[in-house]
């Protein structure tokens, strides 16, 4: 399947959704920090991979897909919206393995190397692993 970018989809976002995403993301980051401060890095590190933005993300996907289907066909797009959310969740599972690769690069790289080198490397590891897994999954 061809990968592309559809900038028109940005118009689907309502201002309140953008604000909610920003606030939710900020709140999850702060909560993860507070947990790390309270219980230490071993427990705190787990929450660096907490799927905090995942539930609102799949919910938005469901709503947008539902609205699109309803606008196009006039029929209820509830089920197709949920199917699209399911497909996004399947993609997220590939991203989660990539997240593990991101963490592995940081874990093995620190403290010998600086973050300016490690962070781009780790981000590249996340995207490469996630994309390769996605391609394997699509080819099956």
């Amino acid at each position, binding site marked *: 399947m061809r*990968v*592309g970018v*559809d900038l028109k*989809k*940005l118009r689907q976002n309502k201002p309140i959704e953008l604000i909610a*995403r*920003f606030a939710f*993301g*900020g709140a999850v*980051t*702060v909560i*993860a*920090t507070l947990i*790390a401060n309270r219980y230490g*890095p*071993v427990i705190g*590190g*787990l*929450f*660096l*991979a*907490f*799927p905090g*933005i*995942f*539930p*609102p*993300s*799949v*919910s938005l996907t*469901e709503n947008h897909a539902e609205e699109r289907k309803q606008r196009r066909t006039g029929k209820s797009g509830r089920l197709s919206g*949920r*199917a699209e*959310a*399911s*497909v*996004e*969740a*399947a*993609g*997220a*599972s*590939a*991203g*989660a*393995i*990539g*997240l*593990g690769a991101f*963490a*592995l690069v*940081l*874990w093995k790289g*620190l*403290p010998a190397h600086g973050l300016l080198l490690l*962070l781009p490397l*780790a*981000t590249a590891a996340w*995207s490469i692993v996630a994309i390769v897994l*996605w391609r394997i999954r699509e080819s099956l």
Partner: protein
Amino acid sequence: MDVRCPRGRGSYPYVAGSTVGTVDREQWRWRAEAGQERAPRASLHCRSASSPYRCNRLAHAKAGKILTELLLRFLIGGAVVSFFSLLGDVIRPKSFAGITAAAPTIALASVFLTLRRHGAVYTGIEARSMIAGALAFFVYACAVSFVLMRWRPSALKCAAALLPLWGAVAGLCWAAWLRR
């Protein structure tokens, strides 16, 4: 009874000299009798030059620093999450865009500040734990995808209801690997 600083958000105790700790009534009475200290006046602010008791300025500064850091993390975290979220909106197909739902947003937002505050060893330990968190995320995302496809419940309800699964897998990883 603790003697509280009247301007210190009501929670920072007076500190006698350079000693850090709570000064209670008995303690300063004993000190006053021994001629070591004068009894503090409750209305006297810690910064007053005439006060024999000084507020723990270190605690004030530390609290301010922590709040500034949390605010910074909130802003950076919000920006990073919004960026990846918008990226997920414009990418197609949706299965590929799903990758961005598992982007290392929290880590990217906080790793620089964590390194600056706690050092590389602490950040490395967090990264090791993050591997276990990512494994838990994988199991959770697979479960959400399966349940949504099989029974088609509301996406938000399904994703929220299955969050304890993430906690359970992360807890198992902690018990089996990280706790040692």
